[in-house]
């Protein structure tokens, strides 16, 4: 038996939700939510929490003096992989020009998700 306490992020209400897991990690009970979105959030957050990761990477040869280009994971990645993603991102440098949506790193941290640019750099 294991309990997890969460604060729902689906709306500003911020319901405190308690999820009870059995010995094999399956959800036994979810309580404290006040709408279906809250229950869905809690179930996902406990079984498969994911996040979009945003950061920056160094860019070379930009004509307007930019030294960094903003980027993000194209889709959400497992929460437990965030720091692996950051480590991979911090290890790369890209060359200008860069366009919004360009893949600047494939399969980041073995997640199967690409890192894409979110800024135009000429």
């Amino acid at each position, binding site marked *: 038996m294991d309990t997890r306490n969460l*604060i729902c992020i689906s*709306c*500003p*209400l911020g319901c405190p939700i308690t999820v009870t897991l059995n010995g094999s990690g399956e959800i036994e009970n979810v309580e404290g939510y*006040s709408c279906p979105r809250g229950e869905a959030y809690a179930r996902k957050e406990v079984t498969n929490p994911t996040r979009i*990761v945003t950061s*920056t990477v160094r860019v070379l040869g930009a004509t307007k003096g930019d*030294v*960094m280009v*903003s980027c993000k994971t194209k889709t959400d990645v497992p929460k437990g992989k965030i720091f692996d993603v950051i480590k991979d991102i911090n290890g790369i440098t890209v060359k200008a020009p860069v366009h919004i949506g360009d893949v600047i790193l494939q399969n980041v941290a073995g997640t199967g998700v690409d890192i894409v640019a979110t800024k135009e750099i000429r």
Partner: protein
Amino acid sequence: MSTFGLVNMEGLMPGREVVILGSGDIGLIMARRMTFEGAKVKVVAELLPYSGGLRRNIVQCLDDYGIPLKLSHTVIDIEGKERVEGITIAEVDEKRRPIPGTEEHYTCDTLLLSVGLIPENELSRGMGVKINPVTNGPSVNESLETSIPGVFAAGNVLHVHDLVDFVSEEAASAGKNAAAYVQAGGLEGARHEVPVAVEGGPRYTVPVSIDPSRVPESLTVRFRVGDIIRNHFVSVYFDQDRVLHIKRPIMAPGEMEEVKLKKQFFDERPNLSKITIRVEEK
């Protein structure tokens, strides 16, 4: 330059051990940003009893990384000469005065102040554009046009937003209206300006006045409340008629609200003299 600018634009880190004062969205996102870049964010202190940031940001920028948020706390002392070496925070009472005996000391090399954004309106002021003292941005009509005809405003220069999506949306409508203004060679005729008033919670609205003849199919009116309000309704009155009545389980200063006014509301009431956005119990 701001810390955000240093980190995100220049790729520079101002320090390694950080305390943040202020828990608006910028303070929260900065905590995660500094963590990603290898810093240790020790605590975020917030003077008010609630965070001014989005719930999502509290969870995903602080809780995810085990960064404590201390509500009703402020910085009372900063140590160090050439460089910050430590700070002391204390809890505050309801009058926001530090409570003796609640002091906590943190060693750190950086104190980030994230204590509110103010729209940058030197340009607008210099032109003589009328500024709304609540938002510190221009007072605009339904077309997002300022008190000077042909000058339009949108985004954080108009009022500080939480989400860039709404900045983009506002910018698109200001751009569309500006283009229409140019194409018409300036708009002619006296404007019929219906004022938008607030009661019971909202601190301001954007726009502050509406010309019914220039309303699109749906006009978005945005506002913020001044305090956390639970289980109330947002109502829109056209003179005495209640045209909208929306239940809101919770509203918070950190989350911008909006109502959409249909053109039909205006068409049905040709003698409209006042619009009121009222937060009420039922």
